[in-house]
């Protein structure tokens, strides 16, 4: 699916990276522990998390991820959004909880 479809499915707000919404994605992962993302994630292109600090964007960047979804209605501060914008990473925010957001994407065909 495309990132645009993720936005629709999760009823998400786009915080930055609007120009990349048509990028195709195939896999995602959900975690609040960046250490685990760095240790266990392989080629996932979307990260769903409740964590808001700049290292979330750094972690995603090191893993070549394309999109971060902040769950539970969370929004990072502007410097974090600016960093993502600079790296070409799409930031989304959804009111849904981590488990629910992951479930919706999984049942709609996104792999783990």
């Amino acid at each position: 699916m495309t990132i645009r479809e993720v936005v629709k499915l999760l009823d998400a707000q786009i915080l930055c990276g609007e120009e990349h919404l048509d990028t195709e994605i195939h896999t995602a992962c959900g975690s609040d522990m960046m250490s685990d993302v760095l240790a266990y994630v392989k080629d996932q292109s979307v990260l769903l998390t409740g964590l808001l600090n700049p290292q979330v964007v750094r972690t995603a960047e090191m893993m070549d991820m394309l999109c971060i979804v902040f769950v539970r209605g969370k929004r990072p501060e502007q410097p974090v959004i600016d960093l993502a914008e600079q790296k070409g990473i799409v930031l989304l925010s959804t009111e849904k909880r981590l488990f629910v957001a992951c479930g919706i994407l999984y049942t709609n065909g996104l792999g783990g």
Partner: protein
Amino acid sequence: MGGVCFEYDVDGENFASAGNASESVKRTLKQLGVSPASVRRVAIAMYEGEINMVIHAHGGKAAVEIFPDHIEIRLIDRGPGIADIDLAMKAGYSTATENIRSLGFGAGMGLPNMKKYSDEMTIDSAVGVGTTVYLRINF
């Protein structure tokens, strides 16, 4: 023949800037045409090291040397040192504070992960003096 050398200061007081050095190395390797898989291994291994220096050792230096077929990274700090390196290498073992965990790190995966993504890794450490981690990653 020597490689191309870069040196970075890793600011131990600024958690937000941790990753700057790794990001710069990542970009350089990409520009040099190193394969994406190798670039990612380098980026993750070095980023974990940078995070370690910030959360455990008040920062330090990263000395990077890029060769045509591999990269050598030395992460040098004057932090507290590692008393038991074997224990520190155990997956899941961490001395990170609750505060660090709340930032998403300190799962005890940093050093094992650096080993996993590198072809050679050595740790030279003395308590009260500091730690130097050497990483070699073949392209």
